[in-house]
């Protein structure tokens, strides 16, 4: 049987095999593998799901059943920068919808979709645990708190202009953020390289790497 992921980058293949080892039951690696697959394919594509099915020993229909349950496994290709604007209650009270609107405007992309140039995807999301720093935004799941509507537009412009390879929460917070839920402590140099959570096994990078 040929290895279904042999076309994946060596780093991702290595990630996948480590994840498969990490649990008493291969199926437990399903969600982590979907992240790695998203890193490779930009979203949970049919191909990706078939590959993950092969790796975990379940059917592709079962993989799809799981993947489509969760909002972070995307069902269509995602742009370079996934901008998620929280509109749940605390952010709603402090203008989350306005932030969403200005992000949509600045990016030229309606929420729930991806721009034609593949640079931005915009979505509104339910509470991302930043209510004390409402309204809150994430770029590739890296958080910026206290983003007022005007600064949100500027954030989008900055992303378009600088196109950072690694998206860093502290940098964006400093440039475009405001009030925070709590003191974040020392700055971090690790961030996202794709619209996938920047966590070592799924893909993340240090600035200036």
């Amino acid at each position, binding site marked *: 049987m040929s290895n279904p992921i042999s076309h994946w980058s060596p780093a991702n293949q290595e990630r996948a095999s480590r994840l498969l080892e990490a649990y008493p039951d291969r199926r437990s690696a399903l969600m982590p593998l979907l992240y790695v697959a998203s890193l490779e394919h930009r979203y949970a594509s*049919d191909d990706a799901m*078939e590959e993950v099915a092969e790796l975990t020993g379940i*059917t*592709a*229909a079962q993989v*799809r*059943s799981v993947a*489509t*349950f*969760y909002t972070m496994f995307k069902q269509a290709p995602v742009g370079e920068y996934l901008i998620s604007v929280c509109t749940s209650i605390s952010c709603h009270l402090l203008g989350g919808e306005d932030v969403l609107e200005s992000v949509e405007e600045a990016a030229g992309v309606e929420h729930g979709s991806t721009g034609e140039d593949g640079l931005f995807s915009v979505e509104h999301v339910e509470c991302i645990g930043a209510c004390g720093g409402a309204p809150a935004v994430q770029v590739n799941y890296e958080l910026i708190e206290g983003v007022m509507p005007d600064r949100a537009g500027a954030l989008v412009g900055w992303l378009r202009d600088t196109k950072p390879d690694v998206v860093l929460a502290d940098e964006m917070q400093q440039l475009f953020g405001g009030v925070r839920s709590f003191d974040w402590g020392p700055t971090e140099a690790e961030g996202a390289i794709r619209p996938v959570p920047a966590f070592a096994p799924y893909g993340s990078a240090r600035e200036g790497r």
Partner: protein
Amino acid sequence: MPEPASVTITINGVEHEVEPGQRLISAAERVGVMIPRFCHHDKLEPVGKCRMCLVEVEGPRGKSLVPSCTMPVSDGMVVDTESAVVEKAQEGVLEFLLINHPLDCPICDKGGECPLQDQTMQWGPGESRFIEQKRTFPKPISISDIVLLDRERCVLCDRCTRFADDIAGDPLITFQQRGNDVQIQTFPDEPFASYFSGNTVQLCPVGALTSVDYRFKARPWDLEHTASVSLVDSVQSTADVQTSRGKIIRVYAIENDAVNEGWLSDKDRFIFSAVHAEDRVTTPLIKEEDGFREASWAEALELVADKLGSYRGDEVAAIGGSRNTNEEAFVLGKFMRWVVGSGNVDAQAGDGIDPALAATLTPRARIADLDTASTILVWGPDLKETLPVLYLRVRKAVRNGATLVVASPAGTGLDGIAAHVVRYRAGSGSDTLRKVSAGEADYAAVREALGEGPVVALVGRSSLAEDPKLVEAVASFARSLPEAKLLTLLERGNVYGALDMGLAPTLLPGRMSASDSTAVETLEDAWGPIPTEPGRSAMESLSDLDEGVIKALLLVGSDPVRDCPDPSLAADGLERAEFVVAVDAFLTDSSSLADVVLPGAVWGEVDGTVTNLEGRVQRIRPSIQPVGQARPLNVVLDDLALLMGVELGSAKVGDVTAEIARIAPAYASVTLDYLTFEADEEGIVVPIDESTDLHRYIPAEVSVPVVTDRMTLHLAPALYDDGVWNRNASSIAELPRAATAAIHPRDASVLAVADGDSVRINETHTLPVVVDSEVAVGSIVIPFNQRETKGIAATASVQVDPVRGDAQGDA
């Protein structure tokens, strides 16, 4: 702590003694309190998802609403199923289910037999309070070749998906998306190609899943129902045959826990359209120079009587009868032995096992014994491909904790859940058996597992190329296992019935030996003189036809040119025969070589009894008049015998059943009246008298063929094949998979072929290669009776040559 025999529960103020361990919804139903439900199903794990079955149960902190489908009964439980709170909750759930339902009952196949519709009539509010946009999905999508899905009608009860996953082991339909967007779906380009997909249509409580061939065909209130059994295989699943205006249009399973527990294979369920196929032979046919011409029954029968009467008894042979009723089979045996004077009768076609072993192996298991077995040994054909409903039963047993041991030269459907898989090179089974029984090195764990009783052993011939003596050897080993019970695995619909009726060269009716002089005397007392020696088997008859020793052949629904291990021998034999008469429903490769073809009535048209692989007798009943001029075999032979000057007295089925009971000791208790099936009857198991156990269990030494430069052959049956019934059943006709030749990677590299390349087998057949590590090294696996493998002889070994370039394309 042992469970008490019963617990007392109070439902709506009335006390009831009920069996412990069951769910409240079932306990209530058994005492006549029907609690509405959608997701609950007796044979599926409770999930409590639809919430329709909420009732109030008293607890330490007062009454609370609980789903009765997940709540086990307990002693002293006090339940209210009719309180205002319960009614409101149930009405509420119903309203929730209806807000997004299309309410298209007038055009829905389920209209008239739909609990959602019924409960809406009974409880539902008159007018909808829901004025929002309904959830819509594009109209029906096909989730397989056979099944369509209307997502709008789906109530997300999880029945089809639980069935697919837990029961069938084919999790190809799943819930997808979340919340209000949840829907049942397959993976794109990966259809719900399960052998059991049709069960989901029957399980679906609403009209979301429909079968392609039933859609818009009838309204439930127009249907007539006949409780009968399926004759597709020897499990003989109990089935409800449904007709409308003289045609069979649907087959549903009947929940007979002793046999099929309410499941059918798709072949069981969808074969029926062949009964009405255009290609049915509907009048007698007589062959002339330029082919068949239609004839009257009178003309055809006279010709046959004339011809058959002109030979000595032992110059005539009969092959077939395994898809007929017991009564038909009995009459065929009586006709051959007494009227014709020939013992050359065989219901098998050389593809089976020793009839005495099949008919009298003890201790015989019942299907339900699998439920309580500690260890199950399957050494034989792939159950999923041959006896699919038995495959489900083994799956269930394993799910409930039984240890499964599978032995086969190639992967089988059960391997995935087996604790031990014994793989052996095709042809080397007896050597492997010796090692297993001795618990030699690699087999120590298997041997140990088999030491854990009670053991149920399912033994059969794994491939047409396998020596049938291996089955005897395996059976004799299995008998030595702790608390062992056995089932043999012959496949054809009523082959066990036919053997019990004496359709074997070595057997007389009632599982008596053909060389047992008392049994012969008893029959002679009843009928008149019969041959006193065993007759010839099908293979012997076919080769004697070729030699000219046998001159005339009676074929009864048998197609040896397709089914016997040596197709060319069969074809040559039929060509050389002086006279061949076939009673058949179709012109098969064999019956088309006959001189006279008589249209036989078939399943769905005939009345009588049948016997399954555990010896269970059930009633098979007619749902329709025979198509055209087709007639049941007992009637045909009655007429034929009269023309030959003998009165068989077999025109009436009931008379034959009564005669069987008189003559065949094992069937003494079987009467048609007894078997007037109401839906919950199980049939009767005809006992095997262990003292008359004909099989002596001296397993012959099975020779291991010496094969050096050839590969040993594993010629394995597949569920969907190129048989005439399958071809003529419209909804499954296209389902046979394109045949391939599977070989182990080591052999692939020796032959220098890869997936997609082709190999040539015996210089006659070319097949694409599948490289499969589940195939034993040195073996080649080829499906039996497929379009592309037609004519391959089941020899022990074959010559395999890689095909170079594009030299492909003969079949």
